[in-house]
């Protein structure tokens, strides 16, 4: 095709130095040529910058769909790239029309200032208290002590339930700790150095930061405040020392739909002498590999997360566990789910041992609907000294229910009261001490999911022969297919392929960073109350836990279908089940990074300057970067077109196209678009060497137009009516800018502004060896028919363009289509399509009310286009 085009346009380029305007001195001519050349070069740079900006805006729009995770450094990079290119366009415009559009700089500065403010915004902490006793904490203090402690404050002080004594170390304390000795600055620097390679260097950065934190001194003010709070607790305990649980209560940790489940450190049974060591451990856990990965995938910025710390007196629990006030796997199920085990609730939370499940009805008598009592061989207990340990349960107790019926009902009653107070389903951690007293340790919003598979309607017998694993617990509903990858050691994490089925022995929080990359999770142990189950539900990843023999029966590389609702795994891709695959949750929506980008995008993307003929089309009205680029693009074309006329320089004035006869097309040569200098007022097609223009023209002239489609009476009335109403449709009144078809061309560039019949279209193309800079833009608007039919035609054209790889949007009846980055041959093909459509969609708006006609033309046009390519 290239060869064909080359013969079509085979011309030798040379500059005819004798071709200048006779009224100008030779020196003036040289000066004008040089000025024009310099302006044309700026024009080309301006167009390249314009393309980069459109690309940046497309990146932002894609990110705002919320499907893929992105970090603040993405936001920063896009903003910088777009700003630099807008600035570049303003500079280039200044070179094209010196002194004429200086107001653009003011508009730019104003918009940039707003973006800067949004990029740099950090929340200020007003309340400077470092430590607050639990007795004084309430749920409106989330910004001070973190969600976990704020909620617990209400359970203790408003609901008057048993909560251990304790205190919160605040966000102000965290800020003080991070600012002392420039700790935060050093952390920012480490992240910045890791830069775009953040993923690859994560292990190193994470360990460097955690070491820095552990080596830092706790500021004296924090030390004294903690000593005060602990002394008060000790005094209330009759002067006896108290062992403590030191737990993270970070911002965002327990918010709905983002659990940070199990990502942060919690230390149990800590003596005061060890307290500050563990305080720093909790703070450092904000920078564990899991926590950083999670933070990035959920769109949190480092500065969004103040690590507040909750301190509670340790409960020497006989039994403990987690209550879900509703079924997390089925939002229609109102029953209360109590997970329970012997000893501390830790093993239920970590999800690595079997535990009992009691399901309680919401009726007046709190009927116990279900008792799943498991063999609980292990429990976690507190040690004499510091810390706790996983030990074997007494044989006599292992198979016994860990709760009595009275305790089950008492817990259910607590659950209902807490849920009623918060008006939303809750996930509650609890413990019972040797006196049989219930303590609430944590309460946070519960995320609920819909069941996925329709159950009874499925004929499972059909694929029974493919069944390899069954009998697991549905930990996160859904269906997924992928290749098995078993993970046993931490090093396996690095090899884990995107979209694989994660198969593990224990459902440990350690595997959490893999969940977002997995298609589904299968674990031999663990229950649906563990951290990993929470994470799977949060990311919408199907998970089956408690599947005996999964590691042995599922082999690396096998393609399997996991149906979590059924607790089954099948070999191969089972299409009838995969029909029920859930759409991916949009995890970025509403996150701080997402919200930042969204707000910033309001200063970049909206286009307010739509009509170049309007009085409002001035630099002062540019409210966004898009407005500035639109304005400059429009004016730069006009300035280039008018250069010859403005400087009485015929060499750079437009020529009328002569193609068999003089045509209503004017052509301005920007640089090397003609084979040689043209002296006459006409230019012949064979004298044109512009690659994009010739390609367009080939499409335009390839197949003769059949003439206007047969019009019905309604179409005719409409066109007559519109002609009387819309002055732009009547020649003589329309603006000067719009009354001609004109091309600006060079060898590799072409822009066309055309009015054919009653519609208006512009086409712009850069087609050269630089594939990366190639683009093709097409705008189409208007028509003589009523709005619906004009819109019908615009949609008709859009459908065809999308079929051939264009990206198209419609705003009112404006069609805007674009394609970029392809090689020359491909772009030439697309240009032919545009040439063809420019002619053959003439007056098609008239038949848009007639489905049969629309169908006929759709077939005819695509058939024609296929013969063109």
């Amino acid at each position, binding site marked *: 095709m290239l060869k064909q085009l080359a013969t079509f346009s085979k011309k030798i380029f040379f500059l005819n130095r004798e071709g200048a305007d006779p009224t100008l001195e030779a020196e003036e001519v*040289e*000066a004008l040529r*040089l000025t024009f*050349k*310099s302006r044309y*070069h700026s024009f*080309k*740079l301006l167009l*390249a910058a314009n393309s980069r900006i459109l690309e940046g805006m497309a990146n932002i729009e894609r990110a705002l769909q919320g499907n893929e995770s992105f970090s603040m*450094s993405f936001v*920063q*990079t896009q*903003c*910088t*790239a777009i*700003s*630099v290119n807008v*600035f*570049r366009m303003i*500079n280039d415009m200044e070179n094209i029309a010196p002194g004429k559009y200086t107001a653009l700089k003011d508009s730019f500065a104003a918009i*940039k200032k707003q*973006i*800067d403010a949004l*990029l740099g915004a950090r929340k200020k902490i007003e309340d400077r208290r470092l430590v607050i006793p639990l007795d004084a904490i309430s749920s409106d203090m989330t910004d001070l002590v973190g969600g976990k402690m704020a909620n617990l404050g209400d359970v203790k002080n408003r609901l008057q339930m048993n909560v251990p004594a304790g205190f919160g170390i605040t966000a102000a304390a965290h800020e003080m700790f991070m600012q002392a000795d420039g700790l935060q600055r050093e952390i920012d620097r480490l992240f*910045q150095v890791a*830069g*775009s390679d953040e993923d690859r260097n994560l292990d190193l950065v994470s360990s460097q930061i955690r070491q820095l934190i552990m080596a830092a001194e706790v500021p004296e003010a924090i030390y004294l405040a903690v000593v005060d709070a602990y002394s008060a607790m000790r005094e209330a305990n009759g002067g006896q020392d108290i062992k403590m649980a030191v737990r993270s209560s970070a911002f965002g940790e327990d918010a709905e739909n983002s659990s940070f489940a199990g990502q942060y450190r919690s230390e149990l049974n800590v003596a005061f002498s060890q307290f500050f060591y563990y305080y720093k451990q909790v703070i450092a856990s904000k920078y564990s590999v899991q926590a950083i990965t999670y933070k990035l995938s959920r769109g949190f910025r480092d500065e969004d997360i103040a690590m507040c710390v909750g301190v509670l007196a340790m409960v020497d629990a006989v039994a403990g566990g987690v209550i879900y006030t509703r079924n997390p796997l089925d939002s229609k199920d109102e029953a209360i789910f109590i997970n329970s085990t012997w000893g501390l609730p830790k093993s239920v939370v970590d999800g690595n041992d079997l535990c009992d499940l009691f399901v309680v009805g919401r009726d007046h008598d709190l009927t116990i609907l279900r008792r799943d009592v498991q063999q609980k061989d292990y429990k976690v207990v507190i040690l004499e000294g510091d810390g706790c340990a996983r030990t074997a349960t007494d044989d006599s107790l292992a198979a016994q229910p860990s709760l009595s019926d009275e305790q089950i009902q008492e817990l259910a009653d607590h659950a209902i009261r807490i849920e009623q107070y918060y008006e939303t389903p809750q996930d509650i951690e609890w413990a019972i001490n040797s006196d049989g007293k219930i303590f609430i340790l944590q309460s946070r919003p519960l995320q609920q999911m819909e069941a996925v598979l329709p159950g009874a309607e499925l004929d499972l017998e059909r694929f029974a022969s493919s069944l390899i694993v069954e009998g697991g617990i549905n930990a996160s509903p859904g269906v997924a297919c992928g290749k098995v990858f078993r993970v046993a050691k931490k090093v396996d994490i690095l090899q884990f392929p995107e979209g694989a089925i994660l198969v593990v022995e224990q459902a440990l929080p350690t595997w959490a960073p893999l969940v977002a990359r997995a298609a589904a999770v299968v674990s031999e142990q663990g229950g649906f109350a563990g951290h990993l189950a929470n994470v799977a539900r949060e990311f919408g990843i199907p998970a089956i836990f408690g599947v005996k023999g999964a590691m042995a029966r599922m082999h690396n590389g096998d393609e399997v279908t996991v149906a979590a609702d059924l607790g089954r795994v099948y070999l191969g891709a089972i299409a009838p089940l995969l029909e029920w695959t859930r759409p991916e949750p949009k995890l970025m929506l509403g996150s701080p990074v997402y919200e930042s980008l969204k707000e910033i995008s309001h200063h970049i993307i909206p286009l307010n300057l739509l009509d170049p003929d309007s009085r409002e089309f001035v630099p002062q009205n540019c409210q966004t970067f898009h407005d500035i680029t639109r304005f400059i693009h429009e004016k730069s074309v006009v300035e280039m077109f008018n250069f010859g006329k403005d400087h009485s320089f015929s060499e750079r004035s437009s020529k009328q196209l002569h193609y068999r006869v003089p045509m209503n097309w004017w052509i301005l040569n920007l640089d090397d678009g003609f084979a040689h200098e043209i002296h006459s007022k006409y230019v012949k097609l064979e004298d044109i060497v512009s690659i994009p223009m010739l390609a367009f023209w080939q499409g335009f002239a390839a197949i003769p137009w059949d003439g206007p489609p047969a019009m019905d009476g309604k179409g005719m009335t409409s066109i007559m009516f519109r002609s009387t109403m819309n002055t732009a449709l009547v020649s003589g009144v329309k603006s000067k800018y719009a009354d001609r078809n004109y091309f600006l061309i060079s060898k590799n560039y072409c822009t066309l502004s055309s009015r054919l019949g009653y519609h208006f279209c512009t086409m712009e193309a850069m087609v050269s*060896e*630089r*594939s*990366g*800079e190639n683009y093709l833009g097409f705008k189409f608007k208007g028509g003589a028919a009523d709005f619906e039919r004009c819109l019908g035609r615009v949609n008709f054209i859009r459908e065809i363009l999308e079929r051939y790889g264009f990206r198209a949007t419609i705003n009112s009846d404006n069609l805007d289509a674009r394609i970029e980055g392809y090689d020359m041959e491909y772009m030439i093909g697309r240009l032919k399509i545009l040439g063809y459509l420019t002619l053959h969609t003439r007056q098609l708006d008239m038949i848009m009310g007639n489905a049969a006609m629309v169908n006929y033309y759709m077939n005819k046009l695509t058939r024609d286009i296929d013969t063109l390519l």
Partner: protein
Amino acid sequence: MDKKQREFKVLLVDDEDVFREATARQLSVRGFIVLAAASGEAAVEIVRTDPPEVVVLDQQMPGMHGSDTFIAIKEIDPLIEVIMLTGNTSVDNAIEMMQMGTFDYLMKPINVDELLYKIEDAYTRKKLNEKRQQEAGQ
């Protein structure tokens, strides 16, 4: 790949050896005469003794910083066009450099073809500016 001989000198300044050597090699393959410097000081010395047409300059370097190097180069020859490279930067920083007169600003990781286009464009701009200056002087 684009293999035409361009026959003009480009100076590549970056303290990261791997990046500098790999980029220099890719630019040489594409027909540029490539000079390389590992520091701002070395770059300024080359601009004095063996002036290039275009400089590709990393902004974050130990010792003489990219922006200081830029100023020193422009003092020696204001017509040399400079393209800045950066790993991570703020909008403010980038615009400030553009205001000072850098030809363009690219963010790492760079696309070599894009860098190549920028270098060619910078070279064309430099030749046009030289001609204009000649004319103004006549």
